[in-house]
């Protein structure tokens, strides 16, 4: 085989010049393109309609519930498309061979009819699918390029500054050493002895110390106390996993899901409402969204410097989505499950010892406590970590300080009224309701 240098040269040159052209006169080009290909539809309006009504099942370039739509206007006759879009089932029932072929190819999923579309609406959509306006892409490219170069520039300058500082420090140290040796030489030359002065002292300091019994006593007590202090501190942190942040088999970012996209915690951890366990979502729940979202496009402004420094590029996240597909056995191109699954061995982060009972639903549904109270700012965590120490002291502190939520809970209202009279307080804390009793959590 022959090696072909610059295999994609022509397309690359074309692409680059195209982008250049768009940047120079991008509105002009877009308008021209629209007029040339369809002559009648308005692609901007079409894009709006497409995103609103079609994009749930159709993508321009890849198979979804329905076929990809790029260039569909040239593939079929306009009248046939009008009929299909307004009422596909009528077309299928009339025995049209093209219609039946598509219907069977896509698992006999019936397309939602759109009888309210005018010819103009459909023309607009087809104008968009046949020649999607390149404005957003060109704009995104233009915005991303300076951002990226600027980012790289600042990274380099940071490193340069650091390097220069280290070099200066090194020079200073070398200079000091040089000065020291020359001074010593001068001292030797002029006959001054530097080392001997120390040896002429009488008793070494530790002997003097050992002879003074009072000092020894005070010192011993001091050392014992400090030792006890540190030993206590060390023993108190045994079994406490605050800050534990294991590496998970799939890099799931709470920062993206709960932070950027503001998905409710309980969307995925739904059993926290009703069960002792908060629940690790099974992979079919991931696929509720990721059947459609097969790549990470990130924020409009692109990944931040910190993310890039950690290697969290868009490609990295897309790779993690592919790991999910592999685990759940989802064939992306055929859009079906292959049945070959590989369970994901998530690493448990929060783990209460077996001798302490904790129930999520009691805290989430009855008490109405926010997840963040115990789990911390999860929506900012790229790698999930344990925020609270989960010690008994920590539980009890919260029980002592938190008032019981009685609103809309007839049982609590009654017992609250009785107990607050008994204790002579207006608001009962969880502790006064029995939240400190041993057998509540240990049995």
């Amino acid at each position, binding site marked *: 085989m022959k090696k072909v240098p610059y295999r994609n040269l022509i397309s690359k040159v074309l692409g680059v010049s195209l982008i250049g052209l768009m940047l120079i006169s991008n509105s002009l080009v877009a308008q021209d393109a629209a007029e040339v290909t369809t002559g009648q539809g308005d692609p901007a309006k079409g894009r709006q309609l*497409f*995103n*609103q*009504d*079609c*994009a*749930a*099942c*159709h993508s321009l370039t890849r198979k*979804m*519930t329905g076929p990809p739509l790029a260039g569909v206007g040239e593939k079929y006759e306009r009248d046939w498309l009008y009929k299909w879009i307004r009422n596909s089932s009528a077309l299928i029932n009339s025995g049209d061979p093209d219609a039946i072929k598509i219907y069977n190819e896509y698992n*006999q*999923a*019936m397309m*939602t009819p759109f009888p309210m579309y005018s010819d103009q609406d459909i023309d607009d959509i087809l104008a968009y699918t046949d020649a999607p306006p390149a404005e957003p892409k060109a704009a995104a490219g233009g915005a991303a390029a300076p951002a990226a170069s600027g980012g790289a520039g600042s990274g380099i300058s940071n490193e340069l500054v650091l390097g220069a500082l280290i070099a200066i420090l090194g020079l200073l140290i070398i200079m000091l050493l040089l000065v020291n040796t020359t001074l010593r030489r001068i001292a030797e030359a002029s006959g001054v002895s530097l080392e001997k002065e120390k040896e002429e002292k009488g008793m070494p300091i530790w002997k003097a110390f050992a002879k003074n019994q009072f000092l020894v006593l005070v010192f011993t007590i001091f050392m014992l106390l400090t030792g006890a202090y540190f030993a206590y501190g060390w023993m108190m*942190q*045994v*079994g*406490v*996993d605050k*800050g*534990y*942040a*294991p*590496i998970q088999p799939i890099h799931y970012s709470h920062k993206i899901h709960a932070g950027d*996209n*503001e*998905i*409710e915690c*309980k*969307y995925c951890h*739904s059993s926290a409402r*009703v069960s*002792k*366990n908060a629940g*690790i979502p*099974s992979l*079919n*729940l991931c*696929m*509720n*969204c990721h*059947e*459609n*979202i097969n790549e990470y496009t990130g924020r409009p402004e692109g990944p931040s410097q910190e993310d890039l420094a950690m290697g969290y590029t868009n490609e990295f996240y897309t790779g993690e989505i592919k790991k999910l597909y592999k685990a759940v056995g989802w064939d992306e191109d055929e859009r079906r499950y292959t049945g070959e699954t590989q*369970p994901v*061995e998530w690493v*448990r982060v929060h*783990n209460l*010892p*077996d*001798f302490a009972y904790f129930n999520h639903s009691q805290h989430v549904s009855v008490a109405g406590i926010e997840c963040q109270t115990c789990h911390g700012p999860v929506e900012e965590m790229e790698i999930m*970590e344990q925020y609270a120490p989960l010690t008994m002291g920590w539980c009890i502190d919260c029980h002592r300080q938190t008032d019981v939520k009685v609103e809309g809970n007839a049982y609590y209202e009654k017992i609250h009224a009785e107990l607050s009279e008994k204790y002579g307080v207006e608001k009962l804390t969880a502790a006064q309701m029995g939240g400190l009793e041993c057998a509540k959590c240990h049995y």
Partner: protein
Amino acid sequence: MNNFSRIGVVLGLVLLVTACADKRNRNYEFMPNMYYSVGYETYQQVDFLPDGMEALEPVANTVARGWIPYGIENTLEGKELAMTNPSPLDPSNREENLKMGKELYTIYCSICHGNNGDGQGKLVKKEKFLGVPSYASRDITVGSTYHVIYYGLNSMGSHAGQLDTKERWQVAEYVMTLKEDLTK
């Protein structure tokens, strides 16, 4: 050996000890056999089960306690059939049901469908999910809404695992009030 190197050795030892406390590993435990249950715990890895997984689907042809089979199939005919399916919830509790329905809707649906059902949820506005219809423009009933929550439709996945039977009906009833508000 002068004082400086002695201090250096001590500091080095301290660093060595503290360096072991890294956050990728669990800490020491006092009495591990009191920390870990003898009985099987949720999500535990168990040797004798397939793939070592303790979380399994119910055995074929059995029904989990409290789970009521739906009885309508996930087909086009099934969806037509579901259109006429009435809500089994007690109408005298309607206010409470709608309150619960709203709470659940906010957790499970509004991220795509929008807080008032107009199809403009947060994910749609960010163009992560597209083409989420407004309830106003679709021919839906309480029965068909339940059907779609149960099985999913097109790009929407099934939410039967997150909501139990009663909760699904509560959400379906709330969705119908949203549709009424939108088409007013």
